[in-house]
């Protein structure tokens, strides 16, 4: 379970250009829930994401995963709990390494002892499930894959270490419609089959209205809508 209690983030506090990015945000996301967050630019989506990743410390309030307070935890320590996929397909993978090497790195969290690991069977199964034929090309450099393939590989890598939370930041934004819908299907399947909590940030209302069970809208750092996706998307014609 992921919880935010009265989370407030103020940039440049006490200075002339002080800006409140998040205002007393309180949320509880139960285990396995798929939450979509939408909102215009400057709404606080990226700040919330940075707080979750430990890149920004909240000015006040608490950030809790499974009853453990995550405030002040270093980003690489938080990675133990969080998988992430970003907008740019090259940021979730290691382009200069082969697919196999990418999967080996993703299989384990933290700094590693001197060992020679091989690709886990589970990783190959996941890759096979994608149906992209990547399991036959594991010696190929990841940088040589197409955008959709890279993003799918990044998704597989993000869930290999069984994170508590999967964070998706506009992860279909740079893909063509076909690849985007394939990646979204994979996202929904991961949520269904692996019971991983997902927080997805998107500007694409078509995706926001079609995937996930909970929809949330942020405006000027405050949660203005929060509810079951099917009800909210019917009630609000234009949310973004």
């Amino acid at each position, binding site marked *: 379970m992921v919880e935010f209690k009265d989370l407030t983030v103020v940039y440049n506090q006490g200075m002339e250009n002080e800006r409140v990015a998040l205002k007393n945000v309180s949320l509880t996301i139960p285990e396995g829930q798929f939450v979509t967050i939408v909102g215009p630019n400057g709404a606080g989506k990226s700040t919330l994401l940075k707080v979750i990743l430990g890149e920004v410390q909240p000015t006040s309030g608490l950030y809790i995963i499974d009853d453990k307070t995550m405030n002040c935890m270093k*980003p*690489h*320590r938080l*990675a*133990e709990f*969080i*998988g*992430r996929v970003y907008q740019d397909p*090259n*940021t*979730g*993978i*290691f*382009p*200069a*390494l082969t697919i196999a*090497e*990418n999967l*080996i*790195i*993703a299989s*384990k*969290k*933290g*700094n*590693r*002892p*001197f*060992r*020679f*690991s091989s690709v886990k069977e589970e990783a190959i199964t996941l890759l096979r499930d994608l149906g992209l034929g990547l399991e036959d090309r594991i010696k190929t450099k990841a*940088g040589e894959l197409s955008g959709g393939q890279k993003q799918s590989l990044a998704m597989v*890598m*993000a869930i290999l*270490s069984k994170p508590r939370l999967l964070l998706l930041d506009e992860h279909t934004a740079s893909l063509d419609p076909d690849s985007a819908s394939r990646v979204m299907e994979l996202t929904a399947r991961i949520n269904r089959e692996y019971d991983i909590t997902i927080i997805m940030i998107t500007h694409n209302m078509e995706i926001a209205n079609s995937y996930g069970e909970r929809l949330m809208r942020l405006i000027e750092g405050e949660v203005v809508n929060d509810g079951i996706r099917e009800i909210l998307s019917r009630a609000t014609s234009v949310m973004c």
Partner: protein
Amino acid sequence: MAILEQGLIIGLMALGVYISFRIVDLPDLTTDGSFALGAAVAVRAVVSGLPAWVAIALAAGTGALAGSITGTIHRKLKINVLLAGILVMTMLYSVNLRVMGGPNLPVPRVVPERAIQSFEEMSGSTGLESLFEEIDIDTEKRESRRTVVAKNIFNNDLDGSDLTLIILVISAVTVVLSIALRSDPGMTLRAFGSNPSGVVSFGISQNVLAIAGLTIANCIIGLSGGLFALYSGFSDATIGQGMVVTGLASVIMGEILLGRVKLFYGLLSPIVGGVIYQTLLSLAMRYGYRIGFLASDMKLLTAVFIITVIGLRQLSSSGRKRKVKQEVKRLWSNSKI
């Protein structure tokens, strides 16, 4: 043969540059300082009577220390890696002068086996005591001041033994690196170079990897500095000047010849590049005067070479992109028809 031997040692230095610039993608300028540090430490160690192999190991170790300092300054103090490298390189200039005890230091043909340094050591008492009582100088101690031939690992005889030794060292370094970079930590080091922020997603500390990468790179550079000094028979405060540019030129030459290929060949490319660079350098120094080149022009030529190669690469890649755009436009207009 001397060109080949020198080229291989320069190639080893270029391998260190390859690690920092290509594997961990950190443009490290410590190179000039750590090469000179390796040279200074190796010669000082031999002068002090230590075996040459220990001197070489010390050169590698101090090079590694210099690299780890650059890495720590860069990561912990959040100083840009270029500036961190320049700062450490500047510090090392003074350190090297101290290590050598002057601007240069030759590898002696002979070293004292038991050098008596002071009156106190010979007499067994202080100079102050001698004012009050008669001091009996121990003549045996004086007689023990014998000398032995310094055991350099290089004989400069062009009989192939130096070449064999250099090839052995380079082979050992390349094979160990090739194996280590395929291990789990080695793989994460390459991953860091490929996508530095990506490693954080997998719980790996960027600090550890950046410091480790620069430590390994400068360890190899220090080692090559030590070998170069013992091979040349001296160390000099300016011995490392321009080494980072030479290393880069060697890396680029190797990549032109072997291409950006698999890991093992990738590690070999700067060594091949180093040999070619040294050959071209020797040819330019030997015949260049006919067209007005001076030996002192080499640094200028090396830098111009790097700019030309990088510039040509950029131009050819932008040309390729333009071609692709034109092709896409053509296909698009055809499909409309």
